[in-house]
């Protein structure tokens, strides 16, 4: 969506909405409605959907995508894109596994994984800010390099070291009925939602994406903001990687491949505009949830496996269209 489009949408909405914060709010609200609607329809069709076990399973299943989308949406709000999240995730999980294999204790192994994400993000950030590469190219390059490294290290063979019991809590544990990955997702969501809405850094992220030039001339250190969001994105992706490894205790050589599209989709479904300046952390998580619920629904409903993808695509289109049309109607466009 181009900037002018966004503006028009905003104009159209008129009535109810007065300011950005509310706008964000309502965007999320719309996707949330779509999510609830889809969930409701599925629960009508199958009794297996609305069980604690299934819901928690669904939550856990989309939690990794959701976690990555938290970092992604910040990048997208600055007007950038991070294609390399899947590689950052996969590489972090691999490095963690290798660290365990090399006999590192849990803390050190996790740190190694996080450090991988950090280095990855720094590389992206520096390519974009210091050299001036377009984000798409820079992160496409590191995406390839990351994948390549994983193949070079593993030759396609998963790494499955012995790990201490305590480590598997991260991916397999529960707090009450809630799986630990879901708890981590919620904590990250709240933390970053607060950062984006209540801190100077968050404000600068929105300003950078809204009008980079004006932001720079107002004293925003645009390059530092960008560097930070790319570092955050990769680091958050590495958290997802570590959780994923803890869950499966197997670092797959192809893990995370192709996930960039899912992650960007979550952010976009949650209302982020690829033109920058617009989006929210909670929206991205809800976007991931919508996709996750649909994916669960098509299996629960025993829909022909060959048709699943088409149905997923269709439902997403309908859900987001409803959102868009609702806005148009409520705004009474010119």
């Amino acid at each position, binding site marked *: 969506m181009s*900037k002018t489009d*966004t*503006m028009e949408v*905003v104009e159209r909405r*008129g*009535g*109810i*909405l*007065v*300011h*950005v*914060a*509310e706008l964000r709010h309502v965007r999320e609200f719309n996707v949330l409605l779509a999510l609830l609607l889809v969930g409701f329809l599925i629960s009508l069709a199958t009794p297996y959907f609305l069980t604690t076990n299934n819901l928690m399973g669904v939550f856990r299943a989309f939690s990794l995508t959701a976690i990555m989308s938290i970092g992604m949406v910040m990048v997208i709000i600055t007007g950038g894109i991070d294609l390399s999240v899947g590689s950052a995730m996969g590489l972090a999980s691999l490095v963690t596994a290798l660290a365990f294999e090399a006999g590192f204790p849990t803390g050190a192994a996790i740190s190694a994984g996080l450090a991988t994400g950090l280095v990855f993000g720094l590389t992206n950030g520096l390519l974009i800010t210091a050299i001036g590469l377009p984000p798409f190219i820079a992160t496409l390059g590191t995406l390839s390099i990351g994948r390549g490294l994983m193949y070079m290290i593993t030759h396609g063979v998963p790494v499955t070291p012995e790990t201490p019991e305590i480590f598997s809590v991260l991916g397999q544990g529960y707090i009450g009925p809630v799986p630990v990955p879901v708890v981590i997702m919620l904590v990250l969501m709240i933390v970053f939602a607060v950062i984006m809405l*209540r*801190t*100077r*850094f968050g*404000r*600068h992220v*929105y*300003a950078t994406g*809204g*009008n980079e*030039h*004006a*932001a*720079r*001339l*107002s*004293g*925003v*250190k645009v390059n530092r903001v960008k560097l930070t969001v790319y570092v955050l994105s990769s680091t958050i992706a590495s958290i997802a990687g570590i959780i994923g490894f803890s869950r499966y205790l197997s670092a797959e050589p192809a893990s995370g491949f192709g996930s960039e599209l899912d992650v960007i989709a979550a952010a976009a479904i949650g209302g982020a505009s690829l033109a920058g*300046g*617009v989006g929210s952390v909670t929206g991205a998580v809800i976007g991931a949830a919508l996709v996750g619920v649909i994916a669960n629904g098509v299996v629960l409903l025993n829909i022909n496996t060959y048709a699943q993808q088409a149905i997923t695509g269709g439902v997403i289109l309908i859900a987001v269209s409803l959102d868009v049309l609702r806005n148009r109607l409520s705004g009474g466009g*010119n």
Partner: protein
Amino acid sequence: MSLFLEMHNISKTFPGVKALDHVDLKLNRGEVHALAGENGAGKSTLMKIMTGVYRADPGGSILVEGEEVTIHDPVHARSLGISIIYQELAVVNNLTVAENIFLAREPRGPTGLLDTRKMKADARAVLEELEMDIDPGAMVGRLSIGQKQMVEIARAISYESKLLIMDEPTASLSHHETQTLMRMVKRLSGQGIGVVYISHRLDEIFEISDRITVLRDGATVDTQLIENMTRDRLVLKMVDRELSELFGEHLSHASDEVLLSVRDLSLKRPTTQGARVSDVSFDLRKGEVLGFFGLVGAGRTEVMEMIFGSRPYSGEITIEGKKVEIHDPSTAIDLGIGFVTEDRQGQGLVLGMNVRENFSLTHLSDYCSFDFVRRREEKARCVDYIKSLAIKTPGTEEKVLNLSGGNQQKVVIAKWVARRPRILIVDEPTRGIDIGAKAEVHTLLNDLAAEGLSIIVVSSDLPEILAISDRVIVLREGKVTGELTRSEATQEAVMHAATG
């Protein structure tokens, strides 16, 4: 004169704002009709309704040549003979000047391919009529804002229209270009083309208009033949105050202490295009208001951008005797420099953010504890400024996109003044703001100078420069061609230095 267009009972409601309230307007063929009113009075909105950008609230009607019409969009309006120069630039930066002028009606050769040669030649012809020396093949993105404005004007007059609306066409033009435009307008009206002329510059209004309509708070307060209107009466109608009480006496607060000193400032790695700055030297004293004058493209903005770190320079800049290297705006800001840019939409504002967020962007740390923004305080300060600058907005949470042009300009001024810099550079600060607000800005600048701030005013409005500056520096083609004290700076002397 015969009636061309009539608007009856036009109202327009935006969320939280009644922008127009039962407005009537009649426009004759060949008439120059001035539209005046303070910022946010509804002038632009009325024109946007006339050209189909907005739809009026139900109940109103528009008649063109006696027939009621519903105007769907600007293209439709154009087919009815109505074209417009918008207040905010609507040019496409990645196309050339000629391509912009002929966008959507490009000439085609016999093969169906573009006839670029004809397009350039036609563009050159229009530009020559406007006495503009711009290469039709130049990318519009590289032009200064004044030049972009001229491109828009060129485009509008190249339409075969019966009514041409000009919404503050001269806000970013200087004296010379304005004069050319005035002549152009007179010629058009001589050819029977009606012109709606919106401006906050009273001189222009009295110079060219035949009739004038004054809007206030979205309602028509007066329509008069210009002969029956005086300056005093117009100002009274517009802002409800006497002209004489608006502008106070100029008091100089300049000390002898030099705060900023610039030596041999040149554009780093100058290229062959355009008027590029070279060897500019000047001093700015504490508490001084230093005016910069020049024609469009003289390089004033470029000098300011170098000082502010947004353009690479060579030469020396010293502040309080210390040599400084300014490579980016945040360094400049840390050194206590503030910069009200001339291009408010492109460089001044984040249009998708609200008034509060735009206002505080320059000084957000004032409201931060551990990076957390204390929103209540932020909002309170913002409200103070909305009041003191009389910014017309439904509230702090309104997107600046929805503010009228002049009110957007006020937000840009507010965000810099609130930061309290030591050196405040204002580039065309009163661009598009009404006479009342202009007086307030002048007073504000004077007050700031009294507090010891040093101010550089870049303006193409010669009377403004003369009214508020302690000293005037004139640039021509990137070089300093004059430095005049307040007493030396007469209209003639300054113009002489600017045009050579």
